[in-house]
């Protein structure tokens, strides 16, 4: 058994092909213990496939995985006693009540009956499910289902929790509560790997990996990533941000543009030439604009990271 300070997850060169599609392509990961590690990426970027390989549900096509000191997929069975996995789609039984679902999960994890009873009661109370205990899971709202799924995933007090887009079907208030619950678990020493496509959730993670087309395109603390952003973010205030956007769309050095209310947010190369080209293009188009650099945020990091690949595939002539 490795020491407690060893990383919870180490993966090297992790790959998975489905036919000709490379769903996950040589991903290197290191997840330290007792923190929230986020997977940020658009749909189809390989987040679910990676999580499934980490808990031994899918065989990797290549690479090496070690989770909590177990070699995966060879030692997946002993690992399953020590991890909790929350699937993207609600996967408890719709036709069992909240309590019956939890009792079933407790028995599957071989919790001794007395301990199981205490644990189920405690979780019903902590996740505000006590009043819903007799309700069939299929009739719960999105937020309630998510609370039940989290309670089921942590019932056997796993060291590592893998959550696959846990908040995709949930309102903002429930999402806040959910994250509070996650941080309480981290305080108690649990390591959490969570995938998301929400920027605000990604921002809350201790560390973040951005996945795009199966490749790991950025890895670091959210603030580090923003500070290390190659390029600058310009905020362009003008009367007609839409026209400004059209004008700048094909300008060399402009990575991405997005309208934010009455202004245009531009991600551009940091060199002076690009800045001059932007000024000139706006002037040519007759747009009077105030241009000011601003602090990059995580969305800029995400856009910059996921933009890199298509450019690499089709280099400019």
């Amino acid at each position, binding site marked *: 058994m490795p020491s407690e300070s060893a990383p919870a997850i180490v993966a090297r060169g992790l790959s998975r092909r489905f036919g000709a599609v490379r769903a996950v392509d040589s991903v290197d990961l290191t997840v330290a213990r007792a923190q929230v590690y986020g997977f940020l990426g658009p749909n189809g970027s390989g987040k679910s496939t990676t999580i499934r390989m980490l808990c*031994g*549900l899918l065989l990797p096509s290549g690479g090496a995985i070690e989770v909590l000191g177990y070699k995966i*997929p060879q030692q997946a069975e002993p690992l399953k006693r020590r*991890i909790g*996995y929350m*699937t993207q789609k609600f996967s408890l039984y719709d036709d069992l009540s909240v309590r019956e679902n939890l009792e079933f999960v407790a028995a599957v994890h071989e919790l001794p009956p007395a301990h199981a009873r205490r644990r189920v009661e405690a979780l019903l109370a902590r996740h505000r499910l006590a009043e819903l205990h007799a309700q069939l899971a299929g009739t719960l709202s999105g937020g309630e289902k998510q609370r039940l799924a989290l309670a089921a995933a942590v019932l056997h007090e796993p060291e590592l929790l893998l959550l696959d887009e846990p908040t995709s079907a949930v309102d903002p208030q429930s999402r806040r509560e959910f994250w509070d619950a996650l941080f309480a678990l981290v305080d108690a020493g649990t390591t959490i790997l969570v995938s998301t496509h929400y920027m605000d959730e990604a921002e809350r993670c201790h560390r973040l990996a951005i996945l795009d087309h199966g490749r790991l395109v950025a890895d670091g603390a959210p603030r580090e990533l923003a500070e290390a952003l190659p390029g600058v973010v310009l905020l362009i205030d003008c009367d007609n941000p839409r026209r400004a956007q059209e004008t700048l769309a094909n300008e060399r050095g402009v990575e991405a543009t997005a309208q934010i209310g009455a202004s245009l947010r531009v991600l551009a190369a940091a060199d002076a030439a690009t800045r001059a080209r932007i000024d000139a293009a706006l002037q040519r188009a007759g747009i009077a604009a105030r241009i000011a650099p601003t602090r990059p945020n995580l969305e800029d990091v995400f856009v910059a990271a996921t933009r890199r690949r298509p450019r690499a595939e089709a280099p400019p002539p």
Partner: protein
Amino acid sequence: MNLRRLWSIVVKELRQLRRDRLTFAMIVGIPTMQLLLFGYAINLDVRHLDAAVLDQARTAQSRELVVTVAQSGVLDFRHAPRTPQELAALLRAGAISAALVIPPDFERRLAEGDRPPLQLVVDGSDQVVQQAARQLAALPLAALRYPAQPAPAGNVEIVNFYNPERRAPVNTVPGLIGVILTMTMVLFTAMAIVRERERGNLEFLIATPVSPAELTLGKVLPFVGIGLIQVSVVLLLGVAIFRVPIRGSLLDVYLASLVFIVASLALGVFLSTLARTQFQAMQMAFFTFLPQILLSGFMFPYAGMPRPAQWLAEIFPMTHFVRLIRGILLRAATLAELWPELAALGAFGAVLLGVSILRTRKRLD
């Protein structure tokens, strides 16, 4: 194998089953409905066929013959065509399925006995009608001769041992237990396991320490109980309504049923490892269901089948069960006498269950 985990899966299944009203209704509904349908509708003792009589002789003796035949109850003479052409038209239109033709020289043929004095025209497009005609061919025409002669004794006397009254339900009901169990057991398990996969429950389950054997057995065990309930329903109704005898030991009946239920469940579990969706599982279940019914000897005699069909039939659990249950219920045979059939069923169940457990991987790919 952890017994507590196995038990928790059984409890979970039973709880889900209790809430699935349709399946719950099918447990008792299917056996009852099928028993009544088969018991009343399947009757190979054909009676009251629509028939015509073409009497070209028109003598006292010919009229007497028509009355005698009518009294047998097999034919109802509803038409009296005047020409053979009219008769053929009736037959073609389906208005009648048999016709008695009495030739003009009926009395001479009867007296001389060199040519058949009568013709029974039957609709050969219906197999059952042909059988009925064979019954009529045995009619003792000699009694009509003058002076009356004693009816000649048949060459072989048939002694019907286990069903002297030749009541059809006595033959159909025991086999029906097999039909009902095959239908429900295979279908229920095949669908129950695929449903778990389709609804996504399996992805959660395989990320827990549950083992494939626990998962498979936990799914199968509740249905064993349900199967035994169905056996009881069919037996009760069969005895109460159709006076089907239970001549052998009741324990043997249940033991044979138990092994057959396990074999059928194993088939269902096996199908579920092949099917991707519940619909596919259902199609596969029906695909195995039809040949079992047709070749098991329940509907058509095993002895009359071509060799390859017999080999195929030997594989099917229902073939062995039909032999077992008819033997025990009707002939008072014991399991000790019928052990090869029981062994075949047991082997079928063990092999398929083993293969299914091996095929159940705790992975998504």
